[in-house]
Each structure stands twice: as structure tokens, then as C-alpha cells.
């Protein structure tokens, strides 16, 4: 939208203040994310810009907090745990979620809406409720304080994302392709891997990325279900913030921001590819 040439002065003022307001809101959104990055290179153990940093004095910047992070076995271990738990739960969520989405996208699926509502509920129900319930139930099953317990819990939290993205990819999926494949003698499994999967792959991958991101950022369930052994990166950040906040957290945070930028780029590429494959215009 741009201002028409016949706009009155009052309208001009209104238009420009509206623009200014919007940029203010964008600044509010992006500034807290970006401010962490320069602060993580602070040579001093402060959470604010020092004189030297403002003068761009190179001695005021250092990588000491990054070195601290790499040399701290707690952080390294937490990263290892996060990767194990997020990968396993993503695999589980993506497999089960994709299968279910295939069933849900068929026209003859009974009770479609009720099933969908149930499968999406882990995204809607507050995590604290799920975490409290899991604490009781997983303890009674002997799953509390085990990797299995945390992986199962994270998988179920990631499932709604997989179901939503894959079902969305499957709307407009041409089912005559699978019929054609069956007609040519392919079994259902072969058809799935050779015909369906290549077409829905962008949706499956982005669902998987959502599930991975969910697990990688999850702390409440970890607080309730995991033990000291399964400390993840968010759990380590949590105690870092609560107990003694050290600038090492800023270094970790910067790495996580870089990770989300990469994730965002991948998702955007996948979205474009999906749109192209389905013949939608960009």
C-alpha cells in the first residue's frame, strides 16, 4: 500500500505515523534477539555494553565465553543429550505422524475431526499439565529419569506439528497417482516410498524440523521427567538463569539463534519447493 497522490496533509501524517509505529513494533520483535549476539563477545563478565565495546575497541571483544562453553563438560554433555533426545523423538514423531496423516487425508476416514482434535491437543494443553501428569504416570511405569521417558514425552509434543504439516501437504495430493501405481502392480509399501513419499517429502521434512525444534527447546517436561543424567541444553540454561547467570549463557544463546536462522532458511526453501512441486505460483 502506498499513499495516493491526492492524500490530504492529515492523511500523510497518519500514514507516516502508522509506518513508524509498525517499524517500532518490528524493532521490538527483533531487537531482543539480536542484542544477545554482540553481548556474547564481551570481554568482561557484564550483560551490558562496556565503554570499549561502544568504541569498537578490539580488546573489549573476546571469545572467552565461547571457550568457556566448549571447555565446560556440563554444556558439552547437555548438547550431546539434546541431540540424542531430539533426534530420537523426531524420528518417532515423524514416522508415526506421517502414517497418521496419510490415514487422515483419506476421504473415507471415520471420525476425522475428533481424531484430529485429539492428535493436536499436545500443542494446546499447557505443557505444565502434561509434565505433571507424565511425572506421575511415567514414574509408575518406571520411565521417569530415563532417556526413553524423555524421548517419548518429546515425541508426543512434536506430533501435532508433523500431523499438521503433512496433512497440509497432502491436501490436493492427487490420489489417482497411488491408484495408478497399484494398477501397475506396485504394493502399498513400494507405492509409498516411490510415489507418495517423494511428493510429500518437503512436508515431512518440515514437520520433522518442527518436531526437532520443539524437543531442542523444551524444558518443562525435562524438569519433571528427566534426571540429572538427561540434562539438555535448555535445562542447563534454565539452571544457569536461575542460579548464577554467567555470560556463557549468551554464547550458548547466540549459537541457538544461529541454529534457528538455519532452520528458518531450510523451512523457507522447503516451502518454495513444495509450492513448486504442487504447481502453485510463488
Amino acid at each position, binding site marked *: 500500500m502506498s499513499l495516493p497522490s491526492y492524500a490530504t496533509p492529515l492523511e500523510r501524517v497518519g500514514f507516516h505515523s502508522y509506518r513508524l509505529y509498525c517499524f517500532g513494533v518490528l524493532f521490538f520483535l527483533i531487537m531482543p534477539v539480536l542484542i544477545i549476539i554482540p553481548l556474547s563477545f564481551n570481554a568482561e563478565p557484564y550483560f551490558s555494553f562496556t565503554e570499549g565495546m561502544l568504541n569498537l575497541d578490539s580488546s573489549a571483544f573476546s571469545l572467552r565465553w565461547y571457550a568457556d562453553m566448549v571447555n565446560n563438560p556440563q554444556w558439552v554433555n547437555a548438547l550431546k543429550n539434546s541431540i540424542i533426545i531430539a533426534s530420537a523423538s523426531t524420528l518417532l514423531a515423524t514416522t508415526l505422524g506421517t502414517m497418521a496423516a496419510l490415514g487422515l487425508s483419506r476421504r473415507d476416514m471415520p471420525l476425522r475431526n475428533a481424531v484430529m482434535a485429539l492428535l493436536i491437543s499436545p500443542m494446546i494443553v499447557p505443557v505444565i499439565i502434561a509434565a505433571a501428569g507424565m511425572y506421575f504416570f511415567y514414574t509408575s511405569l518406571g520411565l521417569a529419569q530415563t532417556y526413553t521417558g524423555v524421548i*517419548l514425552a518429546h515425541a508426543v509434543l512434536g506430533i501435532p506439528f508433523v500431523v499438521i504439516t503433512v496433512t497440509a501437504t497432502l491436501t490436493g495430493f492427487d490420489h489417482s497417482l497411488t491408484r495408478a501405481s497399484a494398477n501397475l502392480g506396485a504394493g502399498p509399501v513400494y507405492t509409498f516410498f516411490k510415489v507418495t513419499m517423494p511428493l510429500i517429502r518437503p512436508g515431512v521434512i518440515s514437520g520433522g524440523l518442527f518436531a526437532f525444534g520443539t524437543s531442542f527447546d523444551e524444558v518443562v517436561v525435562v524438569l519433571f521427567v528427566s534426571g540429572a543424567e538427561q540434562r539438555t541444553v535448555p535445562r542447563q540454561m534454565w539452571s544457569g538463569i536461575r542460579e548464577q547467570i554467567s555470560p556463557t549463557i549468551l554464547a550458548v544463546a547466540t549459537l541457538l539463534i544461529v541454529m534457528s536462522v538455519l532452520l528458518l532458511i531450510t523451512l523457507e526453501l522447503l516451502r518454495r519447493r513444495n509450492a513448486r512441486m504442487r504447481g502453485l505460483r510463488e
Partner: protein
Amino acid sequence: MKYEAITTSTLVEPPLDIDARKRLKQQLRQAERWNRSKAFLLVVPLLLFVGITFVMPIIEMLHRSVYDPLVADSLPRTVAALKQWDRQQLPEEAIYAVLAEELVSLQEQHELSKVAGRLNSEYSGMRSLLSKSARRLSRKDTITRLIDTGSVRTAMIDIDQRWSDIAPWAAIKNLSSRYTLSYYLAALDMRYDENGEISAQPEQRQIYKTLLLKTFAISALITALCLILGYPLAHLLATLPESRSNLLMIMVLLPFWTSLLVRTTSWIVLLQTEGVINDVLIHLGLISERLRMIHNMFGTVIAMTHILLPFMVLPLYSVMKNISPSYMRAARSLGAKPGYAFIHIYLPQTLPGIGAGAILTFILSIGFYITPALVGGRSGQMISNFIAYHMQTSLNWGLAAALGGILLAMVLLLYSVYNRLVGINNLKVG
């Protein structure tokens, strides 16, 4: 398609008799049923998975919010004896004797503190009363002597005057059944009084109603702030040419994709007393004393608004994207002032987006835990934080479960409204 047509036509001729038609119909129905079950079979593994790992835990939590066997299991004979008691006058000597015996045996097995603690939440002072009485009664031979002489009641009243009151007895009776609403009552600042009727908690013990109202108020405030900040922004994103709006969209999506803990950390860094915002304000000479902006309600509201803003912007954007600009142009060319055209033409068309965004933001914020826990301090605590407190610190799991049950009911109610309004099939992520 052509093949199908040919085979069908060859099948149809010559006209079928009734039996053949029935058979065909039956086969069709069978095939349809098989198709339906194939679709269902694909969903079954996930349904089972979600059922076991997610639904069962929640059912278990809800069960705990009403199931309270502690008193019935610890004092079985007293509970049975009190069944007939009418709450009007002090129980008979025999009931005192039964309780005394059970207290002594609990004391010997070191099991008294748990049940005393539970009774204490019903009637304050019960913990000390029970442990004191049990200690005195378990002195050597005391209890047998008292039972033989039939003077347990007098002795217990001697130990503590409160045994001459019906209140402690009423407390035991109130908690004597295995299934109880007492946790829910406690979560709503109510309790069973001495007569077994539901009444309000004493003033100084009322905290949860205020907490619920505060949670609602904070969530409503955050939703309103998100709407005020998000509406113009969504409009800008929806009306700018694609190439430029894509860049701005990244500025909305990047925070959305950034770890919650990272965003909370950055607000701590920004808002703390020695933080960036205070530094800037001091440097500009706007303030002389550093402001306290974190570990209070202000910090919670700011950080949560920032975290939830994308959830408001994205649904608004997808609705506004589909509104043709010609409506506004038509309104203007018919003589409407910008404000009038906005209120009567544009705003009504965006209502579905406002509804979807507002409900989503509200649902997410009433159950929020992490941010209030880290930046909320005392005044910024919400219902989730109390659930965590009772789960981890006070270990009053029944009350935690009841608070969870209330929160769950509110969220499910809003979820069904959202479902009615938007349809979960239209739920999008990213």
C-alpha cells in the same frame, strides 16, 4: 477411467437378477468398509502412542485431583467408627480409644507425619495436635491402662484442650472418603466446614481465587497488547509488495523460531537493573535512578508479549492477505472518511483473524510457565507456577492436580471455541 467404464458396462448387461444385485451391493459395502479400516489402521499406531504417552498421564493427574486415600488407609478404624457420628457433640469414649490406638501404632511405624500433614491442610494446628497426642499416648503402657479404665477421652483432653472441640474430629471425617472434592475446593478457596458443608476459606488463607483472576487479567492484558501491536504490523505485511514484505516477515518469524529460553534470557539482559535499557535511559538523562523492570509483573508482561506476538500477527496476516484492497478504495470513492471506512469496511472483514489470534494468544498465555518462573518474581506468578510449586516444593500433589484440572478445563473450553470459530483443520504452523 475408460477401462472402468467398459468393465462396468459389460457387467451390467444383461440386467441382473435380485440376488446378484444384492451380492454386488454387499461387495461394495465390504470394499468401502475395508477402505475405511485401512485409513483407520494407519492412524491407530499414533492414537495408541498419544493415548499412552499423553492422554493417560493427564487422566492419571485428574484421578489424583479427586483421589485421596491417605486418611482412610492410615486411620481405617477411626474412619469406620466416625461413620455414625453426627458432628453435633463429642464422639463417644470408644471412638477416642480407637483413634488413640491408631495414632500410637502410626507413631511406632513412623507413618504419622504424612497423615498429620494432610489433616493439617484441612484444619490448621492438626499436625502439632496429632504428634503431641501420639507422643504422650505411646508412653509405656499408657494406652492399655487408659482403655482399661475407660478414660481415654479425659486423658486426651488433658493432653490438649482442642480434643474437647469437635473441629479435629470433623477434619478427620471430612477427609475420610477415598474420593473427595476437597482439593478442588481448596483450589477455589473453599473447604468443608465442621458440619461437612462447603464454605469459604478464612480470609487469610484465600489465595487461589486472586491467582486465577490475576492469571486471567495478565493473559487478557497480553492478548490486548499483542492485538494493539500486531494488528497494524499484520496490515503492513499484508499490503506491502511481496518482495519487501518477505524481508519484514523474516523479522517476525526469526523471534518465533528462536528458543523460548533465549528470548527470556535476552529480556533479562535488557531489563535488569544493570541492563541495557537502564544504561540507555541513564545515558539519555531520562531517569536518574535505575528502574526495576524485571522479576515483577512488568517483566512478565513485556517478555510474554514479545514471545506471543507472532501468534497474533500470523493469523491476522493470513486473513488480511485475502482481503481485496478494492473494498477500501470503493468505500473511499463513495465518500467515506478513512476512519469510517476502516471501522465499517475493513475491521469487520478481519474479525475472524482477530478471533483466531486472540484465542490462540490467550490459550498460550494462561498456561505459560517458563517466562513467569524466570522473570516474574513474586508478583508475576501465574497459575502454572503454583502447579509447579505444589508439584516440586510443597509436594501437595493433590492440590497441584486440582489446579491443573481447573487450568485444563479452561484451556479445553477455549480450544473448543477456537475449533468452532476457526476449525483445527485450518491451524497452521510457521
